[in-house]
């Protein structure tokens, strides 16, 4: 009976190394040579080729010495140099900036701007009041003032004479308020457009706002796709949930978390909200899973099912 000799092959950045069971060298080819050539050469020599953890572990012990002995690299330092270059390339190729991270960061900025924009506007209004105490400053009127300040038409708007130094600071503040409003709108549009790209099903079912909220809360689409529907339903209402878990008899469980902002829940009567939240959350969970794993387009089907089920609940069926 013919005995088939075994060759344990392992590929390293420095080259391909084939050893037999006892660990003696059969073949070493440096990294410039293609793996297929090595495979063919081993086959010609009559070896059965095995590539597994064992071949890696015995190859790992000898690779440095053999690479230097065979002349593939001059010395330890050259060996190190090749590995360092490989490591940098390896790491850089794996460190990609993900689209969803960009969107989440932009959305977080949007939330921050929204938070400070309102009080800023109010304070600015109060400042303008000093110059026109008789008129009531609605938001529309403020817009008008901002526009005029931008064009430096102070007297026309206020009527009262303004000191030059006041004028300067008023103009700069006006520019700032005006700009933050524009930037806010721009980021809002941008994030909504982007979420449609990475999660089309989710943003169609839940609306872009809630899709962004859920994504930002979960941290990534992957995390969100791993969540069960019940988790998504209560996302953002952890405080109420744990209050309930601590004291089950007295405190009722929350019905909805972030998804409360959906028009399906917000616009329906209170007694149905819990059931609708459950249905919506289950459809959202499906949509996210489709977006992350298969990227199919199931928007219409999901939406139809969602609306059918909600109408069933409303009819008390």
């Amino acid at each position, binding site marked *: 009976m013919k005995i088939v000799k075994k060759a344990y092959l392992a590929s390293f950045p420095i080259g391909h190394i084939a050893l037999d069971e006892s660990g003696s060298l059969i073949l070493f080819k440096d990294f410039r040579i293609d793996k297929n050539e090595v495979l063919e050469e081993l086959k010609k020599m009559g070896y059965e080729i095995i590539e597994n953890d064992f071949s890696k572990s015995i190859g790992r012990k000898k690779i440095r010495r053999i690479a230097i002995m065979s002349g593939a690299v001059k010395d*330890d330092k050259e060996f190190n140099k090749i590995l360092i270059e490989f490591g940098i390339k*390896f790491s850089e190729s*794996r460190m990609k900036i993900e689209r969803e991270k960009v969107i989440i960061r932009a959305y977080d900025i949007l939330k921050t701007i929204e938070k400070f924009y309102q009080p800023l506007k109010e304070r600015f209004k109060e400042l303008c009041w000093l110059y026109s105490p008789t008129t009531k400053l609605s938001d529309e009127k403020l817009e008008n003032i901002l526009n005029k300040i931008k064009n430096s038409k102070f007297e026309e708007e206020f009527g009262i004479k303004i000191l030059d130094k006041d004028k300067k600071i008023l103009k700069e503040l006006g520019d700032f308020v005006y700009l933050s409003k524009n930037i806010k709108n721009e980021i809002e549009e941008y994030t909504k457009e982007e979420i449609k790209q990475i999660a089309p099903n989710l943003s169609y079912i839940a609306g872009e706002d809630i899709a962004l909220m859920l994504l930002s809360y979960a941290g990534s689409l992957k995390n969100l796709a791993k969540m069960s529907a019940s988790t998504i339903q209560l996302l953002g209402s952890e405080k109420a949930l744990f209050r309930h878990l601590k004291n089950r008899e007295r405190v009722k469980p929350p019905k909805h978390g972030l998804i409360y902002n959906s028009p399906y829940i917000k616009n329906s009567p209170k007694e149905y909200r819990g059931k609708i939240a459950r249905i919506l959350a289950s459809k959202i969970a499906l949509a996210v899973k489709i977006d992350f794993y298969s990227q199919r387009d199931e928007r219409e089907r999901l939406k139809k099912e969602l609306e059918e089920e909600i109408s069933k609940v409303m009819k008390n069926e």
Partner: protein
Amino acid sequence: MNKEEITIKSRNEKESLIELFDNVFFDNEEKKIYTKYTTKSSEELREWDPYRSKIAAAILNGLKNFPFKRGCKILYLGVSTGTTCSHISDIISSDGIIYGVDFAERVFYLFLDLAKKRNNIVPIFADARLPNNYFWVEEVDIVYCDIAQPDEIDIAIRNAEIFLKKDGHLIIAIKSRSIDVTKEPEIIYKNEINKLEENGYKILELINLEPYEDSHALVVCIKNKE
């Protein structure tokens, strides 16, 4: 990085400077340790801050088994920005090599910068839980593990099993607070040491890092089996 790389050349001639280990100097007067960074054109002594680096804290607390030597091959799990890594790179000099593994993008950019400057650091952007992703790392003399995870010891053992040579050193910085907040640190150290011994590692030393790091300890052990 810039902060540490201030040259303190004149200290070379100081009398109070003692060479503790390869390239590691101890200033007896000021109770500080330095590592010597040698390039082609210059030498400089860089202060090793015990508050930022656990090995430096261990040395100041009287670590006896210090396996880092010139020409060592090291697998370093959890390099972070590379503060400790830069000092180990000083010690092993250009003959040795460090394989630095980390999985956090933000700190890894800083570490990549360091790796490009030095000539003995291989950056590996991978999860230490999945050593198959960097199977191409050669056999090493030392595995140093500094990751704040509950299953830190398991990760360290899994990596040492694959990459550490026989009689090589496994060094683990245990952060008891990230393993279990409710338990006393001493009990956690005991548990983790038991786990290591069950897996065939001989414990050489356990150093408490007290004044420098709260509830941290450094374990040095040797891999006994093949």
